[in-house]
């Protein structure tokens, strides 16, 4: 449930930041004309307009919609006038409600989750529905400077006229504060810790001092911030507890059922396969199902029938990785095999995804092979292939 058809494309947006298209529903009505990927507020402008028209509930200051309407925008529904709102996020209603409510209480929202759980997608749509603008975005990287969160300077002006408001280049956060809008910070935990802490003043005092000018920018009512972070990756900068407690945290779950995940993987693989000019593969679904099953079982720590507990390896084993395993297997099958995706084509990929820590993970994988895979009906070929690769 949690990752809808559209989300899985958002994954691309999350990692690559560009292509991948914003889902099937809105792509056709690109308000901005030829944009490869229109912003959410443009793609779903009609829905937002209809919602605003139908929405008679109280709205927090500077919100385009009431919290209820924002939740409806994300979860989908039918309005009294018959307008159908497509679901942007198919997952537990609870999560969306908590997220929207958090923003309405002027607390900042932290969306946590492993890659591929539609964090960016949800944050973009929340910003679009609440402020009508999802572009006030800071992309967090290891090299994100303080200027990206506070302000920079137009050095030509600075040299020519000295420090002034005109010479100042506001960051998206500053613009959001001034305009009472929703700012977004992507991959918050990738940002170095000292830069992260810049946000503390913004979130607690709701003000951004400019000591060079002896001024400050005070947040206007309606300002809020949505951050996304990945809680499973290595090499992230943990949030300081001071910053952490300024956020309400919502964890976005992985797909709830195997069917859903198979669907997501199969669709994404088909898209990728086309772009890589791989020949179409018949009968691939069975193998995809197997990959997804292996991933889900190891990730969740129990077999699908719920009878056997398993150890979980150190890797994230996200849906995104399952996709790359299958894509890799397809390439193998197409170029070196008979074009049919078989156990042997995915075995090496799975091993690579599972065994991240050569000592501990290998034992976990062996245990899984011996206690689960070996006994399973119809998995003999897979077992053999894995034994071959692992030996």
């Amino acid at each position, binding site marked *: 449930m949690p990752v809808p058809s559209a989300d899985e494309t958002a994954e691309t947006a999350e990692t690559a930041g560009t292509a991948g298209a914003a889902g099937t529903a809105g792509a056709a009505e690109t308000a901005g004309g030829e944009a490869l990927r229109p912003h959410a507020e443009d793609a779903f402008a009609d829905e937002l307009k209809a919602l605003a028209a139908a929405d008679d509930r109280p709205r927090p200051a500077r919100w385009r919609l009431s919290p209820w309407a924002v939740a409806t925008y994300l979860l989908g529904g039918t309005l009294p006038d018959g307008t159908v709102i497509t679901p942007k996020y198919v997952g537990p209603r609870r999560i969306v409600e908590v997220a929207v409510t958090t923003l309405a209480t002027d607390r900042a929202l932290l969306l946590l989750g492993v890659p591929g759980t539609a964090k960016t997608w949800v944050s973009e749509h929340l910003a679009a529905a609440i402020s009508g603008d999802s572009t006030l975005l800071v992309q967090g990287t290891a090299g994100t400077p303080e200027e990206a969160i506070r302000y920079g300077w137009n050095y030509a002006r600075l040299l020519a006229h000295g420090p002034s408001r005109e010479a100042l280049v506001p960051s998206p956060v500053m613009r959001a504060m001034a305009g009472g809008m929703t700012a977004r910070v992507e991959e918050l935990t990738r940002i170095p810790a000292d830069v992260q802490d810049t946000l503390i003043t913004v979130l607690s005092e709701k003000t951004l001092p400019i000591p060079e000018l002896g001024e400050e920018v005070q947040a206007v009512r309606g300002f809020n911030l949505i951050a996304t972070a990945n809680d499973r990756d290595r090499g992230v900068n943990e949030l300081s507890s001071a910053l952490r407690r300024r956020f309400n*945290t919502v964890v976005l779950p992985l797909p709830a059922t195997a069917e859903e995940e198979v669907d997501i993987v199969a669709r994404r693989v088909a898209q990728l396969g086309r772009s890589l000019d791989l020949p179409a593969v018949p009968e691939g679904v069975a193998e995809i199902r197997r990959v997804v099953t292996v991933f889900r079982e190891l990730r969740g720590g129990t077999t699908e029938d719920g009878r056997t507990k398993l150890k979980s390896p150190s890797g994230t084993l996200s849906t995104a990785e399952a996709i790359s395993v299958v894509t890799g297997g397809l390439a193998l099958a197409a170029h070196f095999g008979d074009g049919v995706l078989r156990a042997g084509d995915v075995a090496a990929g799975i091993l690579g995804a599972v065994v991240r820590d050569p000592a501990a993970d290998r034992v976990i994988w062996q245990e899984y092979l*011996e206690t689960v895979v070996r006994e399973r009906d119809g998995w003999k070929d897979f077992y053999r292939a894995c034994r071959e690769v692992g030996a």
Partner: protein
Amino acid sequence: MTGAAPGRAAPPPGARPDAAGAPWPLLLGVRHHGPGSARAVRAALDACGPDAVLIEGPPEGDALVGFAAEEGMRPPVALLAHAVGDPGQAAFWPLAEFSPEWVAIRWALSRGVPVRFIDLPAANSLAMADRTDERTDERTSDRTDGRTDEDPRPDPAGRLRVDPLGMLAETAGYDDPERWWEDVVEHRGVGNGAPGGLGAPGGIGAAADPDAAVGSDLAGAVAPFAALGEAMAALRAEYGHGGHEHDAVREAHMRLRLREARREFGDRVAVVCGAWHVPALAGRTTATADRGLLKGLPKVRAELSWVPWTHRRLARHSGYGAGIASPGWYSHLFHAEDRPLERWMTKVAGLLRAEDFAVSSAHVIEAVRLAETLAAVRGRPLAGLAETTDAVRAVLCEGSDVPLAIVHDRLVVGDVLGEVPEAAPAAPLQRDLARTQRSLRLKPEALERELELDLRKETDAARSRLLHRLRLLGVDWGTPAASRGSTGTFRETWRLRWEPELSVRVAEAGVWGTTVLSAATARAEAKAVDATALGEVTELAERCLLAALPDALPVVMRALADRAALDADVGHLAQALPALVRSVRYGDVRGTDTAALAEVAMGLAERVLVGLPPACFGLDADGAAEMRGHLEAVHQAVGLLAEIRPGGAERGPSAPPDTGALADAERAEAGLGGADGAGRVVTAGGGERAGAGPADAGCPDGAGGAEGAGNAGGSAEAGGGERVEAGSGGGERGAADAGDGLRGRWGAVLRSLAGADGVSGLIRGRAARLLLDDGRLAEGEAARLMGLVLSPGTAPAEAASWIEGFVGGGAGGGMLLVHDERLLGLLDRWLTGVPAEAFTDVLPLLRRTFAAYDAGVRRTLGELVRRGPAPADGPRPAGGPAAPGFGPGLDEDRAAAVVPVVRLLLGLDHSHVGHDNHHNHHNRASEVAG
């Protein structure tokens, strides 16, 4: 059926409003265990002051109700009804502090107002339940559920009963009846306009509220019940009894009791019952009709008692659930005078702080804000448990479910244990124990005495089971003592001593069940779930077998499998395996079905097999010594397990060729391949080839391989006495490799260990020795391995520890050296070659190894060494290869003369080998005939 009164406005027909306007009899329809209902009931009773209080519950409880006022009585408690003579047949009426019934009982007792229970007598309901349902434990819990009428639950036959609350909630636009009830009734707070805006807008409560605000206290207190009764009447008019078939009878009885009470106490009586029953009680029927319904009901002799209860058991998902998932939350709502949300969040924060989570007051403030706003967004009058939990998760727990689980366990459910005064009548568990004691002629005596049990006798076996079960329940009447004399597994010695406090323990154990068996089962299950260490669970499994608790075994096994899967320390697994395998064997001895146990043991063995080799690398001396112990324990366990669970050699013919036998053949192949990969295992003996050959070829019939090897053995025996051993040994080995996957794979593990660099010499030596003892090392292989280790390239200390592993540990090791002169020669040559400076390092190790030998062995070894080394690799005579360790020039005739005696000693003529032999004779006979 009968009860469905037509929808009408309050007051109900037959009710006579008195001067103050209270409609008598006062029908207070409630949701069982609803704190809001409890408050409303208290308010209504306070306002109306009835002369008698009638409560939905078994009338046999009338005699016991007085205990509720006693000092020692602390809810949650339950009224327990059980059939005399069969305590297993029981039903519970749990009461929590916030149960409306409890509130009503306490209200009446404190004012000296008589209390009567008006439901169908337990004598009938137990008998009816017994007649309609199969006698299972589930039935008793279902009885209890039947009581919480509003609880939507399929009845045993699988039909969904009409859920009256669900209907009302749906009408009000709620998808969850629990939430609807919470919003409309439970969140009504104390009176109206309570601090924190606790009034409940919307729904039925709201309809009642305006009256309450303007009318008198009395009208305000009664109005919600009237409104609710009306709604129920409307529902029942539409749905009849709604699938609750016994209700007609129960309600008839309630009406009769109500009439009785009105005759006795006058009209001013109050009835507290499930809201669903209100229309039926208000309806107009004749006493004759009601009596007719009650005629001919089955009956058993029932007895009632109070038993302590816990919040956990009130919760839906455990045992005799009362149908409320959050007793702790309800209790909180019931007790909080004002600002329930703020108080709750403060409690949660306190708990989290105690658990070392950093939670500040700022967190609490934000959590309260979030919960309130969330309730507003969801359109609820007040933050309920769902909103509160969401807020706790997002703010206090930072999105993590781990601390949230603690909150749920400790606060939302809560750890409250009820108490029952000592004067209350004995619990059924005690009676069951007394009866069992009588039937087993085992009197509780304060004097300590010893009891010898012979488990082959029925009575003694039953006594043993009873004592084991009691021990599981913490009633240590008997403690196992070491048997004197006989050491047979069928003997048990107990030391018995009954101490007064054991009676208290028995009373406490009453929480777990009504009979010793069911209580011990429940206790064992709970222990299994709570156990943290793997060892605890294995021990528990053993105790379950001893106590004969087959029903607890699946739960214990599941817990065991789960712990085993998650335990990363292979040492723990290796320790657990022997005990488990013993259990499997012991269970076999006792005739228990241990299939599940064996399966878990197999799973455990698999994990050990996978995890053991990596765990052997990079160990220090102590670690290696410990690991050697594990290695031996696992070796024995695997041997036993393979015996208990015969592999493909026996199941081959029946198993489909492509799953069973082929898989095993494949595994055997994999095992050999692994050994080759490890590098050092070379040629197998001729016999082994014969066995392994078919397996390698992937022969679809595993038995074929084994049989072929058997034939090879047989013919070898026919051919010449000296080759008998090699041949039949090979046959066995072949059977083992081809048939028994576990053993074969264990062999592969040992092989890889024996030849692995980086593994301590102690372990490598031991692995080699275990292989040798099992006959898995090919001829000359042991000598090769030893030579390899003792060659100059190996550090002397390492070599010495290898020696300790290989020939250390008891007399058997020494005998090996005595009999295999080649090994002794190798050792001797190495020792003399050790450089002087290294010798002092090696000496303690060697000394430790040799000191463990018997004096005789040591002397023999000394003599052999003094005599000088035998030619280790002397030229072999053409007659055939010499057996390992024996000199060349074997006299075959003399050797053959011994064979019949050896066969006799080993009993080979009667074993399956003999059978094979027989079989071969037939073959040969047929060949001759052909």
